[in-house]
């Protein structure tokens, strides 16, 4: 005898379609988040070998308050995508500093640059008055050392 009604074939009243009416709201929410957080890249990345440091800290500074100075291995200095002679660094940094006193200079030097070149740059920055400097590094972890 065939069982007519087992209960398994009972029709469910629940909707099976994905509700699409709120999809636009979700998309717009995400859209606004990314619009607000987007900062367009201002300058080209330069080829440098980063130095590692264990004490590397994240610098909480708005992007508009950070000025990058790149020092390539051959000693070329780039500020805002332009190659800059050492003697002109203070001349270029001074108006930037006058405009924005909050400026932090992030010095991105290649690991094999001789130190006197870095020293020349810091002296130029002092002359320009921009004394907040960050030596940009990569976070490095040394497994051999016991954690303190």
């Amino acid at each position, binding site marked *: 005898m065939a069982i007519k009604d087992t209960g398994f074939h009972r029709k469910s009243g629940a909707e099976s379609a994905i509700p699409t009416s709120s999809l636009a709201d979700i998309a717009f929410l995400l859209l606004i988040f990314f619009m607000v957080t987007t900062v367009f890249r201002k300058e080209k990345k330069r080829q440098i070998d980063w130095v590692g440091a264990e004490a590397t800290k994240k610098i909480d500074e708005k992007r508009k308050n950070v000025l990058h100075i790149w020092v390539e291995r051959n000693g070329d200095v780039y500020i805002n995508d332009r190659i800059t002679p050492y003697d002109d660094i203070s001349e270029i940094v001074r108006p930037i500093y006058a405009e924005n006193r909050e400026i932090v200079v992030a010095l991105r030097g290649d690991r094999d640059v001789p130190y006197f070149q870095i020293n020349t740059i810091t002296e130029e920055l*002092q002359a320009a008055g921009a004394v907040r400097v*960050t030596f940009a590094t990569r976070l490095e972890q040394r497994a051999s050392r016991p954690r303190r």
Partner: protein
Amino acid sequence: MPIMQRKIRVSDEIPTASLADIAFLLLIFFLTTTVFNEEKGLPIVLPEQAEEQDVSPKNIIFFLVQADGRVVVRRGESEQEQVVSYREVEGILRSELVANDKLIAAIKTDPEAAYRHMINVLDEVKLAGAERISLQVLEE
């Protein structure tokens, strides 16, 4: 029958079906162009120009970074020097700071030394928790 009253059959609703598509298109554009702020490094505040301070020799410890990366430690008062590897700097400075919390860590780097040697020592000095750091050039 007046012509003016003929009903117009055009829908007066804004089409919302494609709204999500437009939103997602813009979303993907901003997703791909976003660069999150990743500024990392060792912060330091340089002294103002022409700002020189007289420091008592007993409040200063010199780390002389040689061109080959070796570090010579010289304590302010004594002339005695000690050659160490940069990895020992943290331990030395930490114990010195316990004895004297006014201690200034002065890093003197050889002009020909690679930048990374100086950063290695600065890293150690930062790890030791030194607040007062001075960067100088080693003069022969």
